[in-house]
């Protein structure tokens, strides 16, 4: 229903149209997320691991961007840095004009595991953020109840997390992240642990939610179909240390459905992606062998 009213953000996004300089620079001034020459290094017992290597990227307000790349290439590390959970070793990240140094409530995060507070009911898990930010109990619970309706778990409002299925838990985790009305929502393989069917339902849910919440989304995934189906842009990362290899626009109309799976434009895009990923995957594997 809501998805039907959606206007495609790309390539005809109004934000793009008001851009005075149509130069597709990665540091366009109106970007909500800007990553510049970011490197992240971990100290390990036998030296240092470069997890992210001089990455630059920009995300426009309202955009849905996916990060795709082989395992261990630094996708989570990059996302954690955008969340303020990881400090840059070099370079800078700004979100909404302010440098990221610590987690901020205007940036929400959904992890691969739901990480719900096991001692709180669904309702109180979702109300946690608004309460932490000083909203009254009534107000926080009202926000939670609205979101519970939105994710279709009304009957489970007072259930504890361990009584829910993995898909339901992840929906609660998404609602919990949305309760603070973040401007940016970061998602780290949120559907990675779900079976194919649940995953498809969750993707539809997310597309629908996205039209209502009006947040910028950065989405990490292994699944190229998922990336293309959901995103305005797909960034493909190289095998570790992570760098951005390719920035592909997904110029497919919205609302999208599984019908796009047969669209020639989609197929061409997917072939591009798969070729790149396969080459990178092989490199990653050889690196491990060594």
């Amino acid at each position, binding site marked *: 229903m809501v998805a039907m009213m959606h206007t495609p953000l790309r390539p005809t996004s109004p934000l793009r149209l008001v851009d005075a300089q149509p130069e597709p620079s990665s540091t366009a001034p109106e970007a909500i997320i800007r990553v510049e020459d970011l490197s992240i290094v971990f100290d390990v017992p036998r030296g240092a691991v470069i997890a992210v290597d001089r990455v630059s990227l920009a995300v426009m307000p309202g955009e849905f961007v996916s990060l795709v790349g082989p395992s261990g290439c630094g996708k989570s590390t990059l996302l954690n840095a955008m969340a303020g959970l990881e400090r840059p070793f070099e370079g800078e990240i700004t979100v909404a004009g302010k440098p990221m140094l610590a987690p901020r409530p205007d940036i929400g995060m959904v992890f691969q595991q739901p*990480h719900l*507070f096991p001692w*709180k009911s669904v309702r109180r898990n979702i109300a946690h*953020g608004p309460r*932490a930010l000083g909203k009254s109990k009534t107000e926080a619970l009202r926000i939670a109840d609205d979101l519970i309706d939105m994710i279709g778990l009304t009957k489970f409002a007072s259930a504890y997390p361990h009584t829910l299925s993995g898909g339901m838990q992840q929906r609660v985790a998404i609602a919990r992240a949305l309760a603070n009305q973040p401007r940016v929502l970061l998602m780290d393989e949120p559907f990675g642990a779900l079976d194919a069917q649940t995953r498809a339902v969750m993707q539809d849910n997310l597309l629908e939610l996205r039209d209502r919440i009006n947040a910028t989304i950065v989405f990490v995934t292994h699944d190229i179909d998922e990336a293309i189906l959901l995103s305005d842009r797909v960034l493909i990362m190289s095998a570790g240390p992570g760098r951005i290899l390719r920035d592909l626009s997904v110029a497919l109309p919205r609302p999208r459905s599984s019908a796009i799976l047969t669209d020639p434009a989609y197929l061409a895009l997917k072939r591009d992606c798969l070729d790149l990923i396969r080459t990178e995957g092989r490199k990653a594997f050889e690196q491990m062998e060594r």
Partner: protein
Amino acid sequence: MSTGGHNRATAAGRLSMLLGALSVPAFVGVWELIARSRIVNAVLFPPPSTVAVAILDWIHSGQFVGDLSASLFRVTMGFLIGTTGGIMLGVLTGRFRLVSSLLSPLFHILRPIPPIAFVPIVILWFGLSEAGKLFLVVWGVFFTVWLATHIGVQKVDRGLIRAALMLGTPRRQMLTEIVLLGALPYIVVGLRTAVSISFYTLVAAELAGAFAGIVYRIEIAQQNMQTGQVMGGLAALGLLSFVADRSFAAIAERAVWWR
């Protein structure tokens, strides 16, 4: 076939219940017989009936209430103080590296010394005052609870902490809710051990010299060769710690309420 197996199983179950119900009465009965048969010295091994009379006298004399409340007070207060301190410091050392570097080595050195070994120095410091007895119980309880909390806090799922950070959870709430509840399953195990430790240390504290208390009464009775009273005291102490352990187990089951 399967019904037969089922019957056999219930029969075995009933037998085991019957034996369980007989265990204590049978022991008391055999003891009574042996003690009355003069195989053993009845002064050193008084029959249960003598013990029961001694217990009744103890209650009627009014000393029992005084002894019970003195012992209960020491155990409960010592447990509460030691536990509170142990949990608070466990959260701090488990969560903050610098606090841990400062305190953990000290605690690890002090922890293995049996609390009973502190009796002489406690008498020098506190004399026979209540403070000294509390000190011994607190000391015994503290390290167990501290260690359980410290380990529990370190095992709190990092994902939970990150999720809480992303939601803007204030530092204070992070400690008092996320970290504390995340570690609660470990803390509860520590508390259960601490219940029995508080009774061990109570015994040491009262043997060191007191003016009332169940163990104090046992010692006085021993000096007067009132063997019945000694055994009555032992029975009271056993019953008390049994009840404490069981009620704590029941509480512990409910403490982690989301399971």
